[in-house]
């Protein structure tokens, strides 16, 4: 308030406006140029995804396509059986997102609301688990998966990432629940609600915005994972989109236009999540701030 009441010297806004009038445009131009540079690889990809191999070899990467060629896209689509890869990725990432959120919530309920003994150490352990390099787990996981018949199954990848993602979710939710209003819990307890009822009738509804954000992040993180799917999923029936794309690399089938077509198709789902995730994230922020 004091700021608005202070009489502003007359000369200052004039000088400021003049000063900023030039420099703000310079800043805008510079930042826009930077943003355009960021987009150049996407432009290259789009430009070359619709070229025929002959067109590419005669015109090079920068030329405008002479025809609207979609065979590269179709070749990639059928060669990698893209719909199946899409389903594998969606099934794995979707299952992990839901299971990871459930496990995180159960853990965090015990740690944040239940305040079980040694909870700081337990939360620290979960945080550590999230930071570990996956190489430190991969060989025993690979070996055991082979022994128990889970190798090359989507289930193996789902189980592993449920645990890795929920390690982070537990850390985050435990701190959120550590400040959960006690009065709500006590009111429910007075009404005779047990712990299970309190979890699903009181804690869960209050936490929904945070859980939605977590769900989206688990989904995207799992979707983009590479090392563990690369090791665990070896055939066409089980592979995810990133693994399928990477294993085609160097294949003779992958001429430059097909590479670009494959990359283009592979990033469409990612861009779609980006749009969904932005909305959910915004909702999560506002819902959290309103409380």
């Amino acid at each position, binding site marked *: 308030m004091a700021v608005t009441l202070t009489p502003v010297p007359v000369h200052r806004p004039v000088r400021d406006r003049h000063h900023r009038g030039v420099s703000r445009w310079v800043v805008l131009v510079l930042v826009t140029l930077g943003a355009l540079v960021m987009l150049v690889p996407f432009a290259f990809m789009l430009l070359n995804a619709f070229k025929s191999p002959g067109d590419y070899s005669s015109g090079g990467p920068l030329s405008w396509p002479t025809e609207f060629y979609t065979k590269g896209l179709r070749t990639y689509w059928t060669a990698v059986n893209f719909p199946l890869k899409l389903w594998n990725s969606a099934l794995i990432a979707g299952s992990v997102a839901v299971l990871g959120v459930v496990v995180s919530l159960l853990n965090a309920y015990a740690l944040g609301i239940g305040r079980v003994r040694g909870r700081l150490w337990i939360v620290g352990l979960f945080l550590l688990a999230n930071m570990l390099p996956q190489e430190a787990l991969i060989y025993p996981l690979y070996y055991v998966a082979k022994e128990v018949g889970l190798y090359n199954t989507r289930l193996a990848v789902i189980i592993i990432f449920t645990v890795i993602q929920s390690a982070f979710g537990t850390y985050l939710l435990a701190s959120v629940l550590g400040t959960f209003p006690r009065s709500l819990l006590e009111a429910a307890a007075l009404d005779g609600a047990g712990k299970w009822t309190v979890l699903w009738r009181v804690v869960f509804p209050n936490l929904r915005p945070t859980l939605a954000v977590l769900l989206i992040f688990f989904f995207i993180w799992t979707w983009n994972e590479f090392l563990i799917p690369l090791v665990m999923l070896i055939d066409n029936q089980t592979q995810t989109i990133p693994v399928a794309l990477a294993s085609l690399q160097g294949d003779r089938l992958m001429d430059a236009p097909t590479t670009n077509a494959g*990359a283009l198709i592979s990033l469409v789902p990612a861009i779609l999540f980006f749009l969904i995730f932005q909305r959910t994230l915004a909702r999560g922020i506002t819902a959290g701030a309103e409380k």
Partner: protein
Amino acid sequence: MAVSETVAATSPTATTPTPRTPRRAPRGRNAAYWLYLLPGAVLFVLVIGAPLVGTVYLSLTKWSGIGDPTFVGFDNYQRLLHDDVFWASFRNTVAMIVAMVVVPTVLGLLLASVLFDVIGRRFKPRTAAALRAAFYLPQVLPVVVAGIVWGWILRPDGAFNSLLDAVGLGALRHDWLGDPGTALPAVMAVMIWVQIGYPVVVFMAALQRVDPELYEAAEVDGANWLHRFRAITLPQIRPETFVVALTCTIAALKVFGPIFALTRGGPENATNVPSYFAYYTFFKKLQVGYGSAISTVLTLIIVVVAAVFIGMQARSERRDRGF
């Protein structure tokens, strides 16, 4: 990668002030909560605890993955000390930290501050949001997809060389990823492109919770943009800076996908990193004991780095409270 974003997004919930009700529950009541920890704990032991112990044990053995491992003590670690590839991989990790932590954090701070403070306030908010989205876009695509596109762009017949030709710099044409001299800088450039959007988005979210009156007051006092950046922006978003630096450093230490897609550690190990080196030793050379030793060392380094970061953060928070 996007860890701190979730933190930033949900921190309003986390910081909701709660009345401190003194509460000492009888121990028996809390014990029932252990049941809720049970599924998570079992999964944790099976998928993280036991494999981690297994890897540490295997690092003390010689094993090809078939038959029984032979216990060899610290032989693998001794071998690591004299392995040039191992040392090269850690030197490259330093380069990855520059490309994935130092440059993106510094540039991200500047960009976020400019987008928020200059463009967001002097132009339409939509302009700032669109520019932010452009910087963030590389973060949403699977990193392997980014690696494959960039691998093609940087190829001898790829788009980058054609671009050089088109602007009359054809003399600079190069096999960017194939030459040991340029492969690492090329990979670093790609990683900066991949990473930059993450700090921009986190820092812009952080700036939104800074009281605008601080900036207005500073402006009335005649502070220019640089003054405001140093006196308000930097101190106000220190918690987010810390989270970004920690998560990006760990990501840099663990980096695997981009290396796999761009260079597979080559040429001549010029871009090899510990993660890829471990993967290669496990699954291509079938030296499980040695691969486990590499993984164990990498794990130790990550734990130490995280501990140092968290200790520094705790100390700086204590100092802030002291004043």
